[in-house]
């Protein structure tokens, strides 16, 4: 007596709910670990498969009463004696008692200080960008409704057979059969049985005749009233619902002139990388424009932007000009949310500053929802750079400009979070 069952078709991810609970519980530690991990990695690895993280086990331990390892007397029986005789003394090996006596009391059989596991890329990014939203994504534009999703919307009397709603249909059929008094099968059988009995016994011919007539009537009726009538049939109805997609364009500006060392570039790269992942993740429709500049500015593709080398002087205003040009050409203000992020070491030719301020105040900032400026590199804290001073003036009057300094890799993420955490007063509509 055996039953062989194929369970492979069962829904997968039976443990998913438990896993999510676990992650929720470990959130704080996981976030810290994720942050450390992001500080240590190259730009490209961010898109890896997943991420192995270790989190401290406190708060995740499952305590139970167990015997401690450092008190009392124990005896261990071990296999594989080579030369020991009774009375021999063995120096205590590293890591506690004689190897074999590890108690089986601990349910997870591991040290209690570190817990290692792998988070998937999605989980990683979810944690990574949790609670972040592009600020003030308010100008929702419905121009690009890029797909219609089907939504259940009641029942209809026509449709494709695959959408047949059996429950509804049978309910209608049943109520119709009851209403029209379609004779039940049991009733017909009952009659037949009785007729049968009467025919055999030959008693009560009158009753027999009446019964036969009734049976004929009833069968006729049953034939007239169908079991399922087209009128009963109901289909699930679906309605296509437009899913609005808010579009955003993000301009990434970076200084790639000689004064930017590889190290600084690396920091800037990281910042944009984060941004890029973040946007890809949060918004369905985001265009990204990369503009790099020395004393001339050009729009480039991502690869060039991050990985090719340039030398030259430093002028910021051309980059702003270029951004404005691209925006005018391709991203009309009324249907795009415009964001900009700029990374630079703060170098700028002093003569260019007034122009930069004017540009920012009059054209760029009025257009953008948000302009994040991060200054990378090891400038001393007391000496504000040229560009910083210029932007600082602007920022006082225009809150959409946000500025932060980043010096080390591990500061990138906190700064990023800092910049993109929705402010309480303005609930970012993400």
């Amino acid at each position, binding site marked *: 007596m055996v039953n062989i069952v194929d369970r492979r078709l069962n829904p997968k991810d039976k443990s998913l709910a438990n896993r999510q609970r*676990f992650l929720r519980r470990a959130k704080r530690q996981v976030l810290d670990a994720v942050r450390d991990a992001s500080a240590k990695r190259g730009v490209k690895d961010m898109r890896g498969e997943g991420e192995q993280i270790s989190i401290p086990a406190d708060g995740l331990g499952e305590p*139970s009463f167990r015997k401690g390892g450092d008190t009392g007397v124990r005896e261990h029986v071990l296999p594989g004696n080579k030369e*020991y005789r009774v009375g021999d003394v063995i120096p205590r090996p590293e890591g506690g008692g004689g190897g074999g006596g590890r108690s089986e009391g601990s349910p997870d059989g591991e040290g209690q200080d570190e817990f290692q596991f792998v988070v998937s890329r999605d989980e990683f990014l979810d944690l990574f960008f949790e609670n972040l939203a592009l600020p003030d994504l308010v100008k929702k534009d419905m121009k690009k409704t890029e797909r219609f999703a089907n939504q259940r919307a009641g029942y209809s009397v026509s449709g494709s057979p695959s959408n047949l709603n059996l429950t509804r249909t049978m309910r209608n059929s049943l109520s119709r059969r009851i209403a029209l008094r379609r004779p039940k099968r049991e009733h017909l059988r009952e009659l037949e049985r009785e007729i049968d009995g009467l025919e055999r016994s030959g008693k009560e011919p009158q009753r027999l005749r009446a019964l036969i007539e009734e049976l004929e009537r009833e069968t006729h009726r049953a034939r007239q009233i169908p079991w399922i009538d087209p009128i009963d049939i109901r289909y699930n109805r679906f309605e296509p619902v437009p899913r609005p997609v808010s579009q955003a364009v993000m301009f990434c500006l970076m200084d790639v002139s000689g004064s930017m060392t590889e190290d600084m570039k690396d920091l800037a790269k990281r910042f944009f990388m984060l941004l890029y992942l973040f946007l890809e993740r949060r918004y369905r429709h985001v265009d990204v424009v990369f503009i790099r500049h020395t004393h001339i500015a050009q729009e480039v593709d991502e690869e060039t932007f991050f990985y090719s080398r340039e030398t030259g002087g430093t002028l910021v205003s051309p980059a702003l000009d270029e951004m404005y040009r691209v925006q005018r050409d391709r991203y009309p203000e009324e249907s795009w949310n415009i964001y900009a992020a700029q990374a630079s070491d703060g170098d700028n030719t002093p003569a260019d500053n007034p122009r930069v301020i004017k540009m920012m105040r009059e054209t760029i900032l009025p257009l953008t929802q948000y302009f994040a400026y991060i200054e990378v590199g090891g400038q001393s804290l007391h000496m504000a750079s040229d560009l910083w001073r210029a932007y600082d003036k602007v920022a006082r009057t225009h809150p959409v400009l946000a500025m932060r300094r980043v010096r080390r890799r591990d500061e990138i993420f906190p700064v990023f979070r800092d910049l993109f955490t929705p402010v309480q007063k303005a609930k970012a509509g993400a």
Partner: protein
Amino acid sequence: MTELEESARLLYRGPDWDYRKLKRVHDAIERIAHEELGLDTYPNQIEVISSEQMLDAYASLGMPLFYRHWSFGKHFARDEMHYRKGLTGLAYEIVINSSPCISYVMEENTMTMQTLVIAHAAFGHNHFFKNNQLFRTWTDAEGILDYLDFAKSYIAQCEERYGVREVERLLDAAHALMSHGVHRFPRRGRLNLRQEREREEERRRYLEATFNDLWRTVPTPESGGEVDPELRALEARQERLGLPEENLLYFLEKRAPRLQHWQREVLRIVRQVAQYFYPQKQTKVMNEGCATTVHYYIMNRLHESGRIDDGAYMEFLHNHTNVVTQPEFDDPRYSGINPYALGFDILQDLKRICEAPTEEDRRWFPDIAGNGDPIGTWRHAWAEYRDESFIMQFLSPRMMRRWRLFRVHNDAEDPDLEVTAIHDEAGYRELRKSLAAQYDLARHEPDIQVVDVDLVGDRKLILEHRVVDGVLLDVSTGMQVLRHLANLWGYAVILQEVDAVSGRVVNEYPEVAPDHPFVNGA
């Protein structure tokens, strides 16, 4: 013999499996198991699963359905990582002590592996579950799946009603006491998990039917309404509360003053689950030994009778050898004694003693040596023993010599370890005693009991850890568990460590007050 006749006798060829072959193999194995080994098994249900599902099954203690809790997610995350990194392989099989007995086989396995797994799990483990005394006393294979179904839905309902956080907190506390939530000695008839569910229904109906809002508003005698000096007598109290009680979860479920009905029921569920798994903890060596012996016997018989070809047999031997390898203590792969190896070797040795005993065997095992019935002797062993008594009874001097066992005395006070017994005439009994003790759960798990409750005063709960050989509790986890315990009890908890022999108090934990008690109406 022609090719055609050969293939008619062979159960299968090549590595691929399909359902027809599984069925044929199962039937062939069943014949050998029932007719030659005389096994008595539950009906079998063999389920084919993928490796992801195997990981899933790991995470909830191998059960096909289980309530939800973050700790299972944690285990899943860890197992998954180990598996992905190739640190650990997956088990070839998981088998569930239920009726019908469910064995999981993985789709990646070759046909030979499937044959091996069917012999091992669907007959070896299955027979053990059905016949071993411990399982017969403590588990209800008929009812377990229904009960887990009830548990899962009950806890889900509680989550809906009282919030996921609250239920999770309660389960955390209950899980911390799980190892001390079992009855170690039978005290009533066989339990029936099906009735459990009905009992819970009945209780709830009764509560609803007899609910009277007035009672809620009657002031309860919170702080010792009437002090009866009689009650001060410890014996009277202990008598009344059924103390000392070693089953902490049971005690809390019945006696904790401030828990609500649903909280008691959740404790009860955790307790039932712990009780269900308790026999498995005590019979690791025997259970695996039994299953390994059965599969070894059956695979050999299949090969002898020409039902599987040489290639399949070689593949089986390769796997079998991997499973029953025992690395020596100085081998980097050594991580304790392998239960498969120990169980299998003792049972094979037993067979030898029954069939071809030496003089020494006759001295050591007068009642079984040379009885010529190894299979009957096996069946008797599987039914009547658990690991500790099994080793005590059947570990022969020859086995100890073969394994070259020796005993090390480890006193935490001393800088060095001392060898106190080896595999020689003087050491056999000592070794056997110590190895058996190593498998005695009562020695592994600290013996903790509720000894007193100060009912008239501040309702302190007083626990005692009876210390054996001076081994104290691990302090940090101990404190955490006490915190959980205090929250469940609702009042402060005190733990004393008392030497089992002299009765001296060797260590006293500070009083732990509840920081977030589970309270009525909270």
